[in-house]
């Protein structure tokens, strides 16, 4: 069961893109809520997305699966997705799994906005 105390999702808009700022842990407990949120966005036709990981200190395979599914959906929609604000722990998991080439990764939210700008 999703506990908002473990992960928060703050949604905002910037430069025509939807920015999701995550805070907490993205794991087997919280990933279903994130998946549901993202599925709602892509179903509503959002094609430019930024996921800000600056508040995330832990991501497990469940979170990685959600990000991969999002990358595939955005690709199918011919949209753009960027990840930003990854701390060392999160970046290392993406790097170890070999997923960094699958995503546009930026250090800051502004740099991410440039990457998804059409």
């Amino acid at each position: 069961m999703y506990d908002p105390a473990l992960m928060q999702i703050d949604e905002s808009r910037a430069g025509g893109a939807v920015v999701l700022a995550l805070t907490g842990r993205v794991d087997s407990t919280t990933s279903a809520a994130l998946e549901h949120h993202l599925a709602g966005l892509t179903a509503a036709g959002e094609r430019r997305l930024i996921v800000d990981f600056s508040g995330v200190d832990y991501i497990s395979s469940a979170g990685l699966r959600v990000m991969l599914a999002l990358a595939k959906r955005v690709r199918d929609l011919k949209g753009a997705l960027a990840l930003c604000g990854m701390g060392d722990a999160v970046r290392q998991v993406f790097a170890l799994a070999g997923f960094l080439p699958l995503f546009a990764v930026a250090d800051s939210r502004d740099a991410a906005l440039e990457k998804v700008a059409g």
Partner: protein
Amino acid sequence: VAAVVIALLPVSAFLLILFLFDSFKLVPRLMLARALASGAAAALVALALHRWLFDLTGFDTRTFARYVAPLTEETLKALCLLYPLRRGQIGFPVDAAIVGFGVGAGFALVENIDYLRGLNDPRIWVWAARGFGAAIMHASTAAVVAITAKTLADRNPSHALIAILPGWILAVALHATFNRALVSPLLAAAVLLFVVPLVVLAVFERSESMTREWVGEGLDLDVELLALIRSSHFDETRLGRYLAELRSRFPGPVVADMFCLIQLELELGIRAKGMLMAREAGLEVPIDDQIRASLAERRYLHRTIGPTGLLALRPLQVTTLRDDWHGYLLRHAGKPARWWRRDV
């Protein structure tokens, strides 16, 4: 033309469906081509062997089909499965099923081509019985051998070679029952067409959920273990203490290489699991130069540590029998099928 299509198409179509159903894409095209080719070669050997045995024993066709052919044919097909099983090229029952079915399909294709050449029977039901019955039977029994062997070898890795025997006995029994024609050949074909997809789907379902679980939980565990190994507390862990103990039995550089190998196996394991996870999502992770370098480094470390050192690492259960499979998976990722290419 109709006879050729009916005799050869069903098993080929079934194999293609199995290959496409595998959402993790566990079997590289090269491996499937090898399975088909080895099955076809086994059929050629069987044809020659049967001619010789037929003359030697003097059995009539019916006795030969009931008591000799199931033994020889299932043995030859099982031999084709030994190599990929022993070399760690099969990771789960699902890829075992595909490779086994491939070997059996290759066998059945050659056997049916031989029948087509030698038997000028215009009756379409004869070819339906061959195409839907005998061919599917050959592929299914080989799949049974592969699935059983892989499942048993996973449970008891030290008896991996013997693990092929129970599946082989079952395959011989199934084959002999089919050849006894207790029911009509057409009815047998119909039963097979109904039963085989159900059994294969059940194996796929179970194996896919096993693979999904292994990929997810395994990746999390490997990441945590790697972080622990790279931390300053490593010496205080069970792993650290065990490696320290090995210093009294192995030269320092070898123990250092053991430490490197453990890290490398974990890194490669994470990459392989990440690749499968991406494939499941419909994405392909590029294999970069770093992976190629890591695979080369792994071979170097295996040489410098030697068989005794590798055996000493076994109790740690960090390096597993699936490591070879990780390597195989990563080596063959995104490569076109070239049957002449040897394994690196």
